[in-house]
């Protein structure tokens, strides 16, 4: 198990290294140099030169790569050209919103999907199965920005339970923060929950058809006991994979929802950085997201090994 973890960690580090090289080179591929791209075609040569120095572009490429990577390792991502503030601070400011939001949405999605998937699978073909499957179909089909607006109209404008957007900051208290994130989290969770419920249902149906469920029933377990004791854990493997993918998606994929609710999250940061050609910010945030994806995959790998003794065995 420890060797397995060590191996996974090494592969994690290698993935990050390769990703950093690709991201760095992608910036190099940009025609001309980053400084002139950032300033546009009409910029004065002196301005470009000044920016080059500021960005550290006047040293050799390997040196620049080394500076960038070693900076990131100690938490120094450089300085944003547009905002003139350290990028690490900007990211930290955004993370305190994006990370809880992703977690919140994932929690909601799991809380909806698990019972829905379990009910649909155990009552296969029944009215509840049909209606749950119908709703998940809708959940996948409805664009989440539209759903977000409907939520705003109902819960913010008509009922006035929530504010229509913005974030008071965690200084205003945990409750206020969570309240502000609730509608966006619901909007984000809906399609994810739909997908997850469908995966849960089909995975559970497969497992319920397995021979060992029949064995469990022959031992005297009721259908419900067989489900909880034998089927669920076996059905978790595909579900874990999807949850892992969803978390990384939610972390960065909330651009539209963040815009609707005026949340200063990571998604908006990238969006703004791209429109303002603030390439250093783009570079750093993309690297951070790669790290998030790789780290989540690592966690999912560990979860597999915890769930499945056959995998643990193969690792020894």
């Amino acid at each position, binding site marked *: 198990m420890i060797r397995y973890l060590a191996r996974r960690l090494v592969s994690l580090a290698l993935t990050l290294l390769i990703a950093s090289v690709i991201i760095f080179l992608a910036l190099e591929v940009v025609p001309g140099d980053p400084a002139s791209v950032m300033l546009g075609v009409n910029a004065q040569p002196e301005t470009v030169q000044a920016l080059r120095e500021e960005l550290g572009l006047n040293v050799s490429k390997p040196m620049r790569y080394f500076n960038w990577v070693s900076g990131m390792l100690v938490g120094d991502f450089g300085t944003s050209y547009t905002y003139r503030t350290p990028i690490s601070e900007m990211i930290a400011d955004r993370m305190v919103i994006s990370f809880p939001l992703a977690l919140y949405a994932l929690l909601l999605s799991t809380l909806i999907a698990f019972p829905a998937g379990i009910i649909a699978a155990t009552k296969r073909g029944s009215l509840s199965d049909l209606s749950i499957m119908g709703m998940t179909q809708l959940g996948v089909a409805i664009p989440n920005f539209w759903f977000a607006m409907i939520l705003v109209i109902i819960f913010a404008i008509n009922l006035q339970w929530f504010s229509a957007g913005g974030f008071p900051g965690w200084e205003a208290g945990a409750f206020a923060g969570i309240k502000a994130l609730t509608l966006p989290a619901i909007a984000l969770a809906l399609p994810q929950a739909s997908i997850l419920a469908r995966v849960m249902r089909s995975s559970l149906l497969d497992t319920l058809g*397995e*021979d*060992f469920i*029949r*064995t*469990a*029933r*022959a*031992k*005297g*377990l*009721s259908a419900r*006991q067989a489900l909880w*004791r*034998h089927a669920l*854990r*076996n059905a978790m493997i595909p579900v874990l994979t999807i949850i892992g993918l969803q978390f990384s998606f939610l972390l960065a994929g909330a651009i539209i929802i963040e815009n609707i609710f005026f949340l200063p999250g990571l998604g908006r940061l990238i969006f703004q950085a791209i429109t303002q050609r603030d390439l250093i910010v783009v570079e750093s945030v993309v690297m951070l997201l790669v790290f998030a994806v790789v780290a989540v995959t690592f966690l999912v790998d560990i979860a597999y090994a915890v*769930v*499945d*003794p*056959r995998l643990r*065995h193969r690792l020894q």
Partner: protein
Amino acid sequence: MSLLTVKDLQVSIGGKSILQDIDLTVSRGRVLGIVGESGSGKSMTAYAIMRLLPDGSELSGEILFNDTDLAAASEEAMCQVRGRSIGMVFQEPMTALNPLHTIGDQIAETVRIHSKVGRAEALRITLDTLRRVELPPEEFPPSRYPHELSGGQRQRVVIAMAIALRPQLLIADEPTTALDVTTQAQLLSLLKRLVDTDQMALILISHDLAVIANTADDIAVMRNGVVVESGSTENIFNHMQHPYTVSLLKASGHVPEKLAAGVLADEPLLVVKDLVRDYRLPRKRFFDAVNYFRAVDNVSFTIKRGENVGLVGESGCGKSTLTRAILGLEETQGGTITLDGERIVAKSEMSLACRRKMQVVFQDPYGSFNPRHSVGRSVAEPLHALEDRPDRLAQQKAVQEVLERVGLNAADSKKYIHEFSGGQRQRIAIARALIIRPSLIILDEAVSALDVSIRAQILDLLVELAASDDIAYLFISHDLSVVRSFTQRLLVMKDGRIVEEGQTDVVFSRPQHPYTQSLIDAVPVVPTVFAQRE
């Protein structure tokens, strides 16, 4: 006084009648054998007694167990009966256990859901039960997971789960069908011992008349959802009434007419010489020396043109690896394989001309076809590998011809594989092998999944084709009785080596190697006192 009496049992699923008027009785300390071919309803009868029928089934009649009618019992009451009073063992030991729980937890579960015993007491019963199924806890601690055990050991765990609470009745549905003959013999004697020591009643379900004849006190013969004949084992075999029982017995001992030995041309077709196949084992530590597992160890043998050679051995002995090597699908580390004078080498380096000389037919007639291709397309597939690929019309003609040769209709080429029965599917697989007129067909457990009557037909067909087309067979099987009646020469394989080789009759009557002897001893045979009648 009988323990279980089934009266007038009827089961239908979705309006379709599955079981009709089933009457059975079994008493403590006795074994009732239910024998029948696939689709006869023998497993359904077991599920009906356990009340574990699939959703949408309807059941009527009486299932009197200790004078309670299980047919009328509630689901809650049945949960009390299952596992405590009636235990059940299934066919597939590889999948019958939950892969994520230890064997100890799974055995203890039976104990803990039926009685309010503590963890320590449950563990004590678990260890005791492991001993009863002859898995000493010193060697097989309850902390093991199912994947760490062999098929036979897993089946013992399944039995342990079923007998942990010493039920009055055990139902075993084809408990040994998926296992090697020697393992089968051990498990059957274990079951018999449990019946004797615990005065348990056993319902043993099998397709194998010989297994039933050797184990059961009473027999019920089933066909198409009806019990066609029942009585004591002796009575059944000595005064067989029903024509179906007679035909079943005949088919299970069916001997296809062998080719006269003199017809054989004395020309070697396949020559395997000093063949070695090593698998690299994973290293424990990075700097450890690389270790190998020798799956095929210096194997040499020859198959002559038109000869019919059997290859037997238990699972894991290297049969499959050897087969794959002969087919050129496996890299080898030493020795040579020559087919009709040409060297066989792994993968794509082999010439098409050489490859077309051999074909293979596998065990699973459904799994070896692409379900989305028509039969015609599947059968014609080997033609596409030829250098001189015939045109469409010629292909069609060849497919129709070959389908007719294996006893199907030319029109069947338009159909899909799911429209055929198991026996027909195997005929199609044979047609696919025949279409490019090979000199050697490898039959890898090709008749193992078939019912005895269908098996007899397929064996006849194979012998007929061999005679007319001069085809040699390498017949790989775990079923020694079939090998005995079908092959001319026999190779016995153990731990990657051929330990015995000779004329089939000679090997069977005077086995030289102790391993061959133990294999032959383990084969269940219909006792001759009974068989004489036939």
